[in-house]
């Protein structure tokens, strides 16, 4: 299953994050209709109200828009919004963690930079 | 889902149908009891003999009343059974309230009594037929007309209903409190003891029904008494909890 229901994050947040990833990887394109709350509930074996909550998170963030009686669709700026959000929140948090852990392990600044650079280089070579 | 509507009559009818299906085994118990009674009847209910040097007379009386007595006991016991927990709870597995549960049980019991009344009269006839083939010859007092049969059946049915309503009442009483199962027999045998063998009241109660010569008045008495027993049963148990 794509979503780990055992994860301690609230399920609706997991759903929102999963749909964001689906949009980023272009499984859903602009103005395309996304899953309904019932489809999600059925797919993921969860309460439809929880699924609706997940969708509403994305509507609130303007990643999805509602058409009355038709369902929810991917907005034009969806990818943009998700990317900015992930940069600002997720990545920032991760960097924060990284710096903290480095401090705990007494890794110096330039050492840390070096590690990041190495990782990037390796990725480039792999691709 | 949408709300559904129902009423007492409709629910009672469904429960009645359900009980006819589910408690058919009560009728097989009846048949068993009646056949058993028939066997006992073969032994004869009374016998006497005269003898002299020339004539030897042996009289044995055979009667179908044994079947009726057994059926009456059956009606009493099956009515008590219907008030016990498993039977009550099984109504509440589906749609019912206390009133519809009682009404459908009573309707079922009356149906069973009618069936029992008819079969016990037929058993009586069967006894006569068997006796005829066993001994041959003339059977005294064996002629039964349609009117007699009808009166016989309705009399039996109403006696059965009377016993059934009494059983139902006793059954409901004993459901009211755990202690009742001990109190009721003590009170019953206690009264027998206090009244003694020559007490008037019990025999008066019995003769109130038995010595009624008019069929119409008899029916009226029975219907009145049964109705009273059934209604009091419903009233005193309408607040009873189920599936505790």
């Amino acid at each position, binding site marked *: 299953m794509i979503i780990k229901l055992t994860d*301690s994050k609230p399920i609706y947040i997991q759903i929102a994050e999963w749909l964001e990833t689906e949009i980023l990887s272009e499984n859903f394109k602009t103005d395309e209709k996304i899953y309904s709350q019932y489809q999600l509930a059925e797919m993921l074996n969860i309460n439809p109200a929880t699924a609706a909550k997940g969708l509403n998170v994305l509507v609130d963030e303007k990643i999805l828009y509602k058409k009355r009686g038709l369902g929810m669709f991917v907005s034009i700026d969806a990818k943009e919004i998700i990317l900015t959000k992930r940069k600002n929140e997720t990545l920032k948090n991760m960097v924060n963690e990284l710096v*903290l852990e480095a401090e705990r392990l007494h890794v110096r600044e330039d050492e840390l930079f070096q590690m990041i650079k190495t990782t990037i280089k390796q990725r480039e070579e792999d691709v | 889902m*949408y709300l*559904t509507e129902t009423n007492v009559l409709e*629910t009672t009818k469904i429960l009645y149908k359900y009980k006819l299906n589910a408690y058919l085994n009560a009728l097989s118990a009846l048949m068993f009891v009646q056949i058993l009674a028939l066997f006992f009847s073969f032994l004869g209910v009374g016998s006497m003999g005269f003898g002299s040097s020339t004539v030897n007379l042996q009289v044995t009386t055979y009667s179908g009343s044994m079947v009726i007595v057994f059926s009456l006991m059956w009606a009493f016991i099956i009515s008590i059974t219907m008030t016990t927990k498993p039977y009550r709870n099984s109504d509440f597995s589906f749609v019912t309230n206390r009133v519809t549960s009682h009404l459908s049980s009573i309707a079922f019991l009356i149906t069973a009594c009618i069936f029992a009344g008819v079969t016990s009269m037929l058993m009586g006839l069967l006894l006569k037929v068997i006796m005829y083939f066993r001994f041959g010859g003339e059977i005294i007092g064996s002629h039964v007309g349609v009117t007699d049969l009808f009166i016989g059946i309705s009399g039996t049915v109403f006696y059965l209903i009377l016993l059934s309503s009494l059983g139902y009442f006793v059954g409901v009483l004993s459901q009211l409190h755990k202690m009742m199962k001990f109190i009721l027999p003590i009170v019953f045998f206690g009264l027998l003891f206090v009244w003694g063998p020559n007490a008037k009241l019990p025999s008066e109660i019995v003769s109130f029904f038995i010595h009624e010569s008019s069929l119409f008045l008899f029916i009226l008495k029975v219907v009145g008494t049964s109705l009273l027993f059934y209604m009091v049963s419903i009233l005193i148990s309408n607040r009873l909890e189920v599936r505790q």
Partner: protein
Amino acid sequence: MNVIECKELSKVYGNTNAIEDLSFTIEENKITGLIGRNGAGKTTLLKILAGYLHKSTGEVNVLTEDPFNSLKVSSNMIFIDDQMTLPESLTLLEILHSAKMFYKNWDMDLALRLFRYFSFHDNQLHGSLSKGMRSTFNAIVGLSARCKLTILDEPTTGMDSSVRKDFYRALLKEYIDHPRTIIISSHLLNEIEDLLEDVLLIKEGNLLLHKSVDELKEMAIGLKGKSNVIKEIIQGKEVFYRNTVGKDTTYVAVENSFPNELLQRAKENGIEISSVPTDDLCVYLTNRTKGGIDDVFNRN
């Protein structure tokens, strides 16, 4: 519309309170989990809602009526548990046909498909079923009745894990296709929490909380770190659980009402932050004493 309304509802047996001053409402078409330990009063509450038992004091309304002796409630409600009494003489198939007479929304097609799927035989008797099979059969009756209010009291008692999974999935699909108000009681939350919208948690007959599952997931936060640091952070907060590990490490589950900056700072001070699984939280909340089993062995 509220399908269930309870106001200061109590039930007294002799001189013990089975349930005490319960006040809550359950809205239409929600799946609510009634969670509590054995003997917390779950079954008593459900049986009052079903109209089987009297309330002692307070108010109870189901479909806007007092359920005791209400035909309206009885015909729009089905109560399923493993104690369901059914006539001994009827075969399983006959029981399904009987149920059909009683419930106007009954779906025979669904009942039969589930009946075959779980490999029941037409002529089996209810009394001869194993515990798990009986629960499964009762559950089939409960789902197929399509009652406005479906009460399932520990419906999976005795079912093996694959049947449980199938049952929960069937329940969800039925609910999606034909929304209705469902109450499931259980002493375990984790198995059913994904299905639920709301949780009603009771302890010793008292209502502890009535929240959505998501709120419950965010209600508490777990902090682990140096005992003195933890002690400082959790001042004035409600602590649900506390456990000291090793020399100087404390884990607490505490109400989640910290501002983000504070958590950030705590993290920088070496405090591990985690979420508290709802299941654990329920155990903490319903524990009879603050400590737990260890206290029994602590004699000093």
